[in-house]
């Protein structure tokens, strides 16, 4: 009797249109947000911030971006790392050129630059699909990393080949730099990601989201009902890259603080984010969070359990981790392409019927 749709009469379409039409969902999400905003900041220290919460938030935002393109619009991309790099280096250039610019503006502008680059690399999608598009985005990945390595202007001609984010204050509170406290860094990212996750949810359930899904499910039929493939695909590349670029900016500036293009934004990043959306659920904003949490936590838990718990060698533990990851990816691809988000939904549907399963 706890989780019910029945008995909650929705008098208007407006109420039905609400983001969480079921009251229990609203309580649940309110509770999660309350813990995230009020409890976690009290407990968070450097280890928790750097090992878990900041990567979780940055990757969740990147995963939302990739999910928009791949999960909602059906266009495979292996260029996520490269697009994150575009966001990171745009943020770096903006931060060093305009030190007084509000950091929110910096991140949004970095997203904007990435959106433009994304549209450019999205052009081939008008002609090619699937595997061939994946290869084209892979080319974007390598080209972009090569570019940032090669052209000194992007790293302000720093001899070490690295970029370091200068300290940034946000309304008087330090959020970037060695002196920034874990709660400040965490809360900034959390607020940012929460707001933009909500925006993404709204976009995917409106006209634009429907045109993406229509292209994904059957592009010919979509065109026959008046959806322009050009507009739908390029808008998906733009919005997706906007998110991935913002994620790259947070990833570099708030989480890492310093980065070297090849290492921080390599092809592994592209795959990591792709795995997040496969595990979390293709075509789900919630899934992007579940997947990011899973992919960030799983290696840490596994390592803690194996190395500290049962005394396995670190190298062996790493192998087990990679193997587990591979098995899980295959499992989700074959058995449940809608990932953890779908498993969560099934659990809810079961709860809804409980205790009368029939």
């Amino acid at each position, binding site marked *: 009797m706890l989780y019910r749709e029945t008995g909650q009469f929705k008098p208007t*379409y*407006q109420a039905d*249109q609400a*983001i969480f039409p079921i009251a229990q969902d609203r309580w649940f999400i309110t509770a999660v947000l309350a813990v995230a905003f009020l409890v976690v900041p009290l407990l968070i220290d450097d280890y928790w911030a750097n090992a878990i919460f900041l990567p979780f938030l940055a990757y969740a935002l990147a995963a939302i971006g990739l999910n928009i393109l791949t999960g909602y619009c059906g266009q495979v991309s292996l260029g996520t790392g490269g697009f994150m790099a575009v966001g990171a280096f745009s943020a770096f250039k903006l931060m060093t050129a305009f030190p007084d610019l509000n950091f929110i503006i910096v991140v949004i502008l970095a997203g904007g630059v990435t959106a433009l680059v994304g549209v450019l690399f999205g052009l081939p999608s008008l002609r090619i699909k699937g595997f061939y598009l994946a290869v084209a985005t892979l080319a974007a990945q390598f080209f972009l990393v090569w570019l940032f390595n090669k052209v000194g202007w992007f790293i302000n001609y720093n001899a070490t080949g690295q970029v370091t984010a200068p300290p940034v204050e946000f309304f008087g509170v330090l959020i970037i730099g060695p002196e920034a406290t874990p709660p400040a860094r965490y809360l900034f990212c959390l607020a940012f990601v929460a707001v933009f996750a909500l*925006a*993404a949810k*709204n*976009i995917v*359930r*409106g*006209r*634009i989201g*429907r*045109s993406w*899904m*229509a292209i*994904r*499910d*059957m592009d*010919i*039929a*979509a*065109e*026959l*009902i*008046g*959806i*322009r493939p050009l507009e739908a695909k390029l*808008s998906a590349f733009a*919005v997706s890259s906007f998110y991935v670029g913002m994620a790259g900016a947070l990833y570099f500036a708030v989480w890492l603080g310093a980065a070297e293009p090849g290492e921080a934004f390599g092809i592994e990043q592209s795959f990591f984010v792709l795995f997040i959306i496969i595990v979390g659920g293709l*075509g789900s904003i919630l899934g992007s969070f579940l997947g990011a949490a899973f992919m960030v936590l799983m290696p840490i838990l596994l390592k803690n359990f194996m190395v500290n718990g049962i005394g396995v060698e670190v190298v062996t533990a790493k192998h087990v981790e990679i193997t587990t990851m591979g098995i899980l990816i295959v499992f989700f691809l074959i058995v449940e392409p809608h990932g953890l988000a779908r498993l969560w939904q099934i659990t809810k549907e079961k709860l809804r019927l409980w205790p009368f399963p029939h």
Partner: protein
Amino acid sequence: MHENKPIGDVMLSVDNISLSFGGVHALENISFNIREHEIRAIIGPNGAGKSSMLNVINGFYHPQEGTITYKGQTRKQMKPHEAARTGIARTFQNIALFKGMSTLDNIMTGRNTMMKKGVFWQALHLGPALNEELEHREFVENIIDFLEIEHIRKTPVGRLPYGLQKRVELGRALAAQPELLLLDEPMAGMNLEEKEDMCRFILDVNDEFGTTIALIEHDMGVVMDISDRVVVLDYGKKIGDGTPDEVRANQDVIDAYLGVSH
């Protein structure tokens, strides 16, 4: 039939259309027209070129010869999304729904071209974007009521049985408020009851909204019952054109089609 909207002028005319794929002549020198508010059936044996004809009309296939005059404008060809924007909607022989989306979302896509609010308002889901969404939602809910599919509103269409999918596809086409509705075998694979429902919907659409309908159908009983005029194709050629009674009496048609399979 047609109590509200009498049959009017010619709305669409195809003239001397020829279409071939390599050596296959799918359509050879076909001419006919469709009048406002009428139900026009296109019949013929398998492979006669019926679906190809609809594909030519809504711009999916580009004929090598001939012209299409729609609402006074003559073209050699057009793009599918242009056809959609000028009031032509259709359903497909092999259902072409968006499988991963709910019934509601599928039908809502039919109104996409009428929705204008940009990504910024959409992201906020407030003000103009919300009003727009609700306004179109209301229209779509009326279609859902009309087609009696309230109970599957939120179900992903991939999970629906065939008959219901056909109904949702009709709903998506209706959502665009088409002036010309092209239906490719809307009753194929349905049982008698489902067929009767579908016939009723088609007649109601034609009658209440005055929508012009071009319909491909193999069930002769249905065709003779609901259509105003019939075109008969065989091996890409037109062999008959007229009222159901005229077509039924046409010797070529009897030989090529009615005589063979019925």
